């Protein structure tokens, strides 16, 4: 079913991003994305204040619970209060570009896709931009998730995604940390959602590299997912 003039909401989980969050919100606003929800995940800096001053609606966790928990709060809040047609999940550290949002939204509107997932490995330009060790770990993550979920993707830990109403209503996140990225893929398989990978660029700045996931944390992540699967 084609959606005319979809109501698109951007949800941005943020933890101690005061130095960049204003810029991220401004770039989205300048490009016509007015509905922005920042979920401040227990930051100790003034992420809330800056996000609010830049015109985003802000929810604040009183303690830090992780990106998965922040996304869940944001998605549940939007679903209960705005009934959005599409929710785009967007990182707060400046790694994502507003230019990729139309690419994520269009398959949902035109091809009746339930969820689009950004992939940094589908564009040659972005591929060369990835630090070698990060690339190796990401590829291992892709292999791991492909085996555990039986869904073939090229990039499983990319925070840039778009969900239609069916995906918003059916995906249930229980992992509160970075494991949520794998959980979303498992949910796609379980709920039989129609998905599509879309090439997106990831901007690896000095800031985003410092803020992003540590390479070593991917191993812990794998262990957590396995334990959760067993128990």
């Amino acid at each position, binding site marked *: 079913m084609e959606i005319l003039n979809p109501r698109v909401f951007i949800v941005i989980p943020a933890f101690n991003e005061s130095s960049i969050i204003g810029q991220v919100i401004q770039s989205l606003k300048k490009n016509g994305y007015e509905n922005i929800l920042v*979920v401040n995940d227990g930051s*100790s800096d003034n992420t*809330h*204040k800056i996000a609010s001053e830049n015109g985003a609606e802000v929810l604040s966790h009183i303690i830090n619970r992780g990106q998965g*928990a922040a996304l869940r709060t944001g998605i549940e809040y939007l679903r209960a209060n705005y009934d959005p047609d599409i929710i785009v999940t967007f990182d707060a550290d400046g790694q994502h570009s507003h230019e990729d949002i139309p690419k994520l939204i269009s398959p949902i509107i035109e091809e009746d896709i339930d969820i689009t997932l950004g992939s940094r490995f589908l564009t040659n330009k972005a591929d060369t931009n990835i630090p070698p060790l990060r690339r190796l770990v990401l590829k291992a993550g892709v292999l791991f998730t492909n085996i555990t979920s039986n869904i073939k993707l090229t990039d499983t830990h990319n925070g840039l995604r778009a969900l239609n109403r069916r995906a918003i209503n059916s995906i249930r996140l229980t992992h509160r940390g970075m494991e949520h990225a794998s959980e979303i893929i498992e949910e796609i398989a379980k709920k039989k959602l129609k998905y599509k990978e879309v090439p997106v660029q990831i901007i690896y700045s000095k800031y985003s590299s410092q803020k992003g996931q540590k390479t070593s944390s991917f191993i812990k992540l794998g262990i957590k997912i396995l334990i959760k699967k067993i*128990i």
Partner: protein
Amino acid sequence: MLKIIILFFVLFAASRAYLRFKDKSLNARALAFWMILWTIILVFVLHPQFSDNFASFLGVQRGVDIAFLTAVVILFYLVFRLYIKVDSVDQNLTKLNANISKWMHKNNIDNKK
């Protein structure tokens, strides 16, 4: 000497379980579980020949081996129970945190940081 130390430790552990039952942080089933466990340990420590008989009944050579095997199985089970409990508390904490943030936002008492 070792028997005396273990005896005191078992009595101490059993009294802790009883006190926790008295202040209602342990239910009757859990108290029964701990009391049975400590009683078995006490019997095995005070009468090692009993554990040997039991071991040969189960096809294990020495009584001490069956004690170790049982201990490992119980520890695994307790770690499993603990993991489930911690995971459930963790999930409840996440839900509570989310609900507080929504409530604060709705009532306009946001954390301004």
